[in-house]
């Protein structure tokens, strides 16, 4: 079981969280749970409504879409984070390839956190606006 301090260091290394302060990351890690799942466990199922976001702490996961393998991901990857912000169907299936330790957060706890800490929302908005900008650039040049 990794300690809270370890979680914060891991979160800080995730690109999505790179502009967050240590205080922000502490708040995020407090609202999350660490769980271990066996190989073969389905974390996210394509086409179903999702309410959770995950950060892989240990192990590897496989991402598939319509049965086709898209990627193998490991420690530090963030999965399903958009489901923390809005309700929508999962766009891919994520299965544990090995035994995995992940941080899980659900939408309700995350929203509560954002309402209590508006500065966190602002940092997230900045991060997502940047993502939208680069997707936009890919799409429209």
């Amino acid at each position, binding site marked *: 079981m990794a300690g809270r301090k370890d979680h914060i260091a891991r979160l800080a290394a995730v690109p999505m969280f790179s502009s967050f302060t240590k205080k922000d990351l502490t708040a995020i890690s407090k609202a999350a749970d660490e769980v271990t799942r066996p190989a073969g466990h389905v974390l996210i199922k394509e086409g179903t409504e999702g309410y959770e976001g995950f950060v892989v702490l240990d192990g590897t996961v496989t991402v598939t879409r319509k049965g086709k393998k898209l990627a193998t991901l490991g420690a530090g990857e963030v999965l399903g984070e958009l489901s923390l912000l*809005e309700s929508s169907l999962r766009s891919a299936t994520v299965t544990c390839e090995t035994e995995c330790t992940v941080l899980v957060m659900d939408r309700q706890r995350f929203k509560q956190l*954002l309402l209590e800490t508006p500065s966190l*929302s602002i940092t*997230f908005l*900045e991060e*997502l*606006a940047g993502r*939208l900008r680069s997707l936009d650039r890919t799409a429209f040049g």
Partner: protein
Amino acid sequence: MASKQTKVQHLAGISLFEGCSKKELEKVASAGDEILMTAGSVIVDQGQTGREAFVVLSGKVEVTRSKRKVADLGPGAVVGELSLLDHGPRTATVTCVTDCELLVIDQRNFRAVLQEVPTMAVKLLATIAGRIRDLDKKYYG
């Protein structure tokens, strides 16, 4: 001089603000300044960083990207909305075709509104997450 009601009506038509309440948009309207720009003035310049968004209250503007005309826009159009959230470069140049009345909202004032109204920040996050999801789906299937 546009009335507050007119400003709120224009803000309500902006996709970034879908889901925001009238009360929230009134705060945004009050955080903005009304300015006049003469025909030929450049509102935003592609490639430059900016920290304001502009809502056209009256007049006509022209949008160009890499010197190619992309669109003509009129009252209710928004220019540079993502600059309320991050500090990325302007993705297009927008020039006044006629004399224009504009509502300018700068990032600092906008963030102050979000600090004051955390529910609005959460709604914006959901809207942006949805947009990322849509673009993502469009380009990566």
